[in-house]
């Protein structure tokens, strides 16, 4: 489910002249066998966006089916497959790889000041593992599809007659390895490839977030891998440790699954938080507030992520003591999350805010993440969870976090680094319009679902009571509005690729290292070793009319260096 992007002829004459990563070599093989992290990032991005189109189509199909009670466009069995495919594709093929593998691959080494990731071959191998996993997932459709829900809960997943269960489990298993190797690569890169001067506390916050994410990827994903393996064996042989008729325990599957899949939520959201830290400070031209707090809150979230999985299982028959402990720990995740949100708000306060498209996505993130995060508190509270469990309230909550936060963060990041990736600017007005349409559509779709859920509409149901219809209709209209927003966004990017204005090296006024190299960056990122400074000190930048971008003002730089020296003495 991917297309390999070949360099566009019109990009040949971009600012970087002949040497940029897009034009360095040409032809299909120069992309298919590239070891350049930037090209691998672009290939990931293309593949992830293609999967997003497929997953989004399934979302529209299932929302359309829910327009009326009973049958609207498809049978109940087909509907079950729609929501399962939507969930599995969006989680495993889109959101998990979207920021670390796609944007992270492109940005991490340049931001760090490195030539590439630590293991370039392993990086390419991860990409092909992703492709392999995606092909298995697609094959599962041909093999009869699957209707287990993206969580593959036993005993249903071991007994359902749909033929695509084993292929999709294999697919997710392979995707897991792709994710593990990307995480491993990033951890080693951050440890071993920081140039002189790039200390841990000079690293941009996006790198801290990717680092925290990588820790979760390497520690949690192996557990998913073995769980899916055991599930495949169990489904093949009709016996296994999840089968209660032989003394196995189906709830054990849930423990294993959520031991991975709760941290996986943070694999999705933590890097998005990193992007937001960059966007908010760069586009409000103000030093990030509470750098260390944001950095350590990423690590804290990564640590907490491993000890809260039981909150997905409050009604699974877990003991009251376990439920209480998991509930309490889940509440504590609110602390690092709130630390971040308050710090972003403080960064905005008295900042010189440029309402660019990335900033609009950043602001949308703040609103949506606040709603998504605070509704999580209802679900972490034991007694309200018993009522809300498995209702649309949960669906709305995790869409606010996974889509409204993680995906919106990714799209914001894509806008932020688009000029760097392609060497082209996009139509700012069109991008902002798309953002507003997506924001409105998103809230119409999912805020309605909070109401549906609190009134008792269960999730994953094909049919419903007539009194719920009005909410379902509004929610479906919202989904279509959102689709229009994403379509506008796609048109905006396509237009930028075809006729976009040439991008300057530093269009937004960023100070981290990627803005020091040309747009698009050269093959080896930096011709000479970059100078590492405070990546959130914007005081030395001024807008240059001729460049149509920000440049470092020598006088202001001298003043800033003198001020820093005074500070040290």
């Amino acid at each position, binding site marked *: 489910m991917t297309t390999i992007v070949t360099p566009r002829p019109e990009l040949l004459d971009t600012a970087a002249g002949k040497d940029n990563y897009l034009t360095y070599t040409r032809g299909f093989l120069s992309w298919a066998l590239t070891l350049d992290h930037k090209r691998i990032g672009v290939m990931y991005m293309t593949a992830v966006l293609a999967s997003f189109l497929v997953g989004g189509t399934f979302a529209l199909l299932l929302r359309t089916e829910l327009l009326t009670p009973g049958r609207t466009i498809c049978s109940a069995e087909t509907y079950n497959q729609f929501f399962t495919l939507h969930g599995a594709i969006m989680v495993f093929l889109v959101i998990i790889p979207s920021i670390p593998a796609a944007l992270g691959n492109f940005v991490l080494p340049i931001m760090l000041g490195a030539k590439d990731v630590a293991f370039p071959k392993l990086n390419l191998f991860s990409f092909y593992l992703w492709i392999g996993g995606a092909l298995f997932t697609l094959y599962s459709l041909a093999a009869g599809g699957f209707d287990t829900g993206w969580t593959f809960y036993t005993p249903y997943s071991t007994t359902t007659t749909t033929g695509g269960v084993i292929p999709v489990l294999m697919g997710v298993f392979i995707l897991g390895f792709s994710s593990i190797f990307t995480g491993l690569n990033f951890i080693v890169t951050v440890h071993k490839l920081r140039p002189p001067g790039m200390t841990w506390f000079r690293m941009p916050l996006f790198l801290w977030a990717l680092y925290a994410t990588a820790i979760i990827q390497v520690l949690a994903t192996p557990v998913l891998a073995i769980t899916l393996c055991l599930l495949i064996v169990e489904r093949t042989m009709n016996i296994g440790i999840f089968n209660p008729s032989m*003394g196995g325990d189906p709830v054990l599957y849930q423990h294993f699954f959520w031991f991975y899949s709760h941290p996986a939520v943070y694999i999705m959201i933590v890097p998005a938080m990193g992007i937001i830290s960059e966007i908010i400070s760069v586009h409000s031209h103000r030093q990030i507030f509470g750098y260390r707090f944001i950095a350590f809150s990423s690590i804290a979230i990564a640590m907490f992520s491993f000890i809260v999985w039981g909150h997905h299982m409050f009604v699974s028959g877990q003991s009251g003591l376990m439920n209480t402990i998991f509930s309490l720990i889940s509440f504590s995740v609110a602390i690092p999350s709130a630390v971040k949100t308050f710090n972003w708000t403080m960064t905005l306060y008295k900042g010189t805010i440029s309402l660019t498209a990335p900033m609009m996505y950043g602001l949308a993130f703040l609103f949506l993440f606040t709603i998504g995060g605070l509704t999580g508190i209802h679900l972490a509270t034991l007694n309200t969870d018993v009522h809300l469990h498995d209702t649309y309230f949960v669906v709305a909550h995790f869409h606010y976090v996974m889509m409204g936060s993680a995906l919106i963060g990714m799209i914001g990041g894509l806008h932020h680094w688009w000029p760097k990736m392609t060497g082209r600017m996009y139509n700012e007005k069109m991008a902002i319009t798309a953002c507003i349409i997506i924001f409105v559509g998103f809230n119409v779709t999912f805020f309605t679902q909070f109401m549906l859920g609190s009134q008792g509409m269960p999730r994953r149901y094909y049919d419903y009571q007539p009194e719920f219809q009005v909410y379902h209709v509004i929610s479906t209209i919202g989904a279509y509005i959102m689709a229009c927003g994403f379509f506008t966004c796609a048109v905006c990017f396509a237009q930028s690729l075809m006729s976009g204005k040439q991008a300057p090296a530093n269009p937004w006024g960023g100070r981290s290292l990627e803005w020091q190299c040309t747009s698009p960056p050269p093959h080896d990122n930096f011709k000479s070793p970059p100078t590492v400074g405070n990546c959130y000190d914007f005081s030395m930048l001024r807008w240059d009319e001729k460049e149509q971008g920000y440049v470092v003002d020598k006088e202001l730089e001298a003043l800033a260096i003198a001020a820093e020296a005074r500070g040290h003495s």
Partner: protein
Amino acid sequence: MVTLPQRDPFEDSLRSDRAARFGMWIFVIVVGMVFAATILGYIVVRLNPHMQAPWRPSSDAGLPYTLLVSTVVLFASSATLHLCLVRARCDDTPGCARFASATYFLGFLFVLLQGEAWWSMWMHHVNIDENLYAWTFYVLTALHVVHIIGGLFALGVVARHASEGRYGAARHNGIVLCAMYWHSLDVIWVALYATLWIGSR
């Protein structure tokens, strides 16, 4: 034959080697997590209070003694791999090649012995699809053997490079990486074997 372009982000091979070792540590942790989860899963079902039938069928004779022999062989292979590294550090190329081949042979022998253990279980009518005692035995040992077979591929490369005289005092990172993985499989096997043995009591 298509070859990948060269791209080394490190300034010198020393840093590159160090990074590779660090990466291998992380990989060992990944493998460790896989087995930790598996052993935990085993313990949960083994201690399941709702289990109706006894864990081990009365007709079963217990874990085959071949496993003890294979454990010794696996330890021996780790020892020879360590000696291979020691010889490489001393610039003794033929010695290094000899120990690398010996390790490969012992690793292969371990796989055969595990196969023999399976065969003897099978001969005692311990069928994989009859109870969890048998299922966990076959699945857990198979999971370990799969990792050993993966290690044999790496050992094969090391043995070939060693026979070509590529390793010496200045350059032996390949052996180090392979040894890190191989020794960790030793530790994992001991944990796994101990779990299965205590579980079968």
